[in-house]
């Protein structure tokens, strides 16, 4: 399993499993443009590839995002969050 850590002052992340998807709720701190730009780049990365249902973004007011991630793209999504510095650490745990 993949575990990750992030700056809780800059964003909040929650996730839940749902059939073949993992649903993320991400709320960003409004006063940090680099975090907002980072998530935009994550979205752009998955928008520009040729898979339409890998990672789907839904915008809500106050910088809240629901993100539906297909299970087979879970790792790619988490690594992309890491790449854009939205996550501070990512590690594999023993049960996988």
């Amino acid at each position, binding site marked *: 399993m993949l575990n990750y850590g992030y700056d809780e002052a800059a964003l909040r992340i929650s996730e839940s499993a749902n059939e073949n*998807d993992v649903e993320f709720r991400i709320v960003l701190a409004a006063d940090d443009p680099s975090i907002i730009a980072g998530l*935009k780049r994550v979205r752009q990365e998955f928008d520009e590839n040729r*898979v*339409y*249902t890998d990672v*789907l973004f*839904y*915008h*809500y*007011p106050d910088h809240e995002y*629901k993100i*539906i991630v297909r299970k087979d793209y879970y790792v790619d999504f988490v690594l992309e969050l890491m790449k854009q510095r939205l996550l501070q650490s990512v590690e594999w745990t023993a049960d996988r």
Partner: protein
Amino acid sequence: MEQQAIWAIGIFLVIYALIISEKIHRTIIAMIGGLLMVVLGIVDQETAIHHIDFNTLGLLIGMMIIVSTTAETGMFKYIAVLAAKKAKGEPIRILILLSLITAACSAFLDNVTTVLLIVPVTFSITRQLRVDPVPFLLTQIIASNVGGTATLIGDPPNIMIGSAVPELTFMAFIANLAPVAILVMVVYVPFFIWMFRKKIQTTEELKQGVMAMSEKELISDPKLLRKCLIILGLTLLGFFTHQMLHLESATVALAGAFLLLLLTGEHKLEQALTKVEWMTIFFFVGLFVLVSGLVETGVIAQLAKRAIDLTGGDPIATSMLILWLSAIASAFIDNIPFVATMIPMIQEMGSMGVSDLEPLWWSLALGACLGGNGTLIGASANLIVAGMAGKEGHPIRFVQYLKVGFPLMLLSVVISSVYVYLRYLI
């Protein structure tokens, strides 16, 4: 029959069969067919070039540049999410609204572009509502073909007809085809509701999730969007007035495209030109030259004569023959090569004494565009959606589509027959 005519027919039939078989890409086959006509001396290069309709090609290229640049702004996603919210997250209402948006967009953009823009947003909305996207995709395929029927620029057969017959202007297409396209969509909507309402149910909580979405953030580049909207508006105005301005529709589309690139700056140039579907453009080039072989050897004239003999030159019988033949043929084969063959045939009928060709042109446009709804292989947009759906784990089966598309196609052709008869033939 002359030896060259026999060669021309042979090449045409083999190429046509290869296009239908889809074993090799249709662009390669069409280009080889066109080149064979030249290499074997059936048409010389100069004549072949004269048969390539640059108005059709210019119109397609211009619109592809404008649409691909506009798509980058997120405008189409914004419209789709706004529609979902207006529908209060109710799946059947969203299905109807998205199909109406698809029809409206298809009237002014080409069908393939429209479905490429609308299908990804459909996947996104249906995923959030946890409903099957296939009913949405089926109705969007059908709506794209109906919407494309309404205008000169909506569907390749109309672009080709409008280009071949200068008196059929952009406004003439709207005046003659938009009423029947609207009527067909109005008749289809209750069928869509009846067929799919029970298959796409969701929970109140998921509907509320759609209602709470913020569509404004989907506009990724407001500055570029403003420029695109201005150019789109000017281009559409140009289409409406192209006859008054004495400009061909291709000139209008290309002027719009390059004016937009002037406004966006040259950094967009390379990207915009890569988004042009060059495979489609060269497919047209090959077809025009392929058909020129049949025209120059008199084969088309012979076919036109036989059609007139069959109908006795009666305008009603000839119109109905063209309408139904085009519809049935377009349901099973690509309507672009079919229309490329039919255009010179109808022109030949004019020189053989059929005085009023107008009902025949509208019959060809209606048959070729609406016929594409008959099967999953009837139009390029159908295949594109089926391909996208299959890749994302929601395959659309040939028979599954046939059960929905074929009866609806027949219904639209019956409506068109009544329309053509009442409007032009009595």
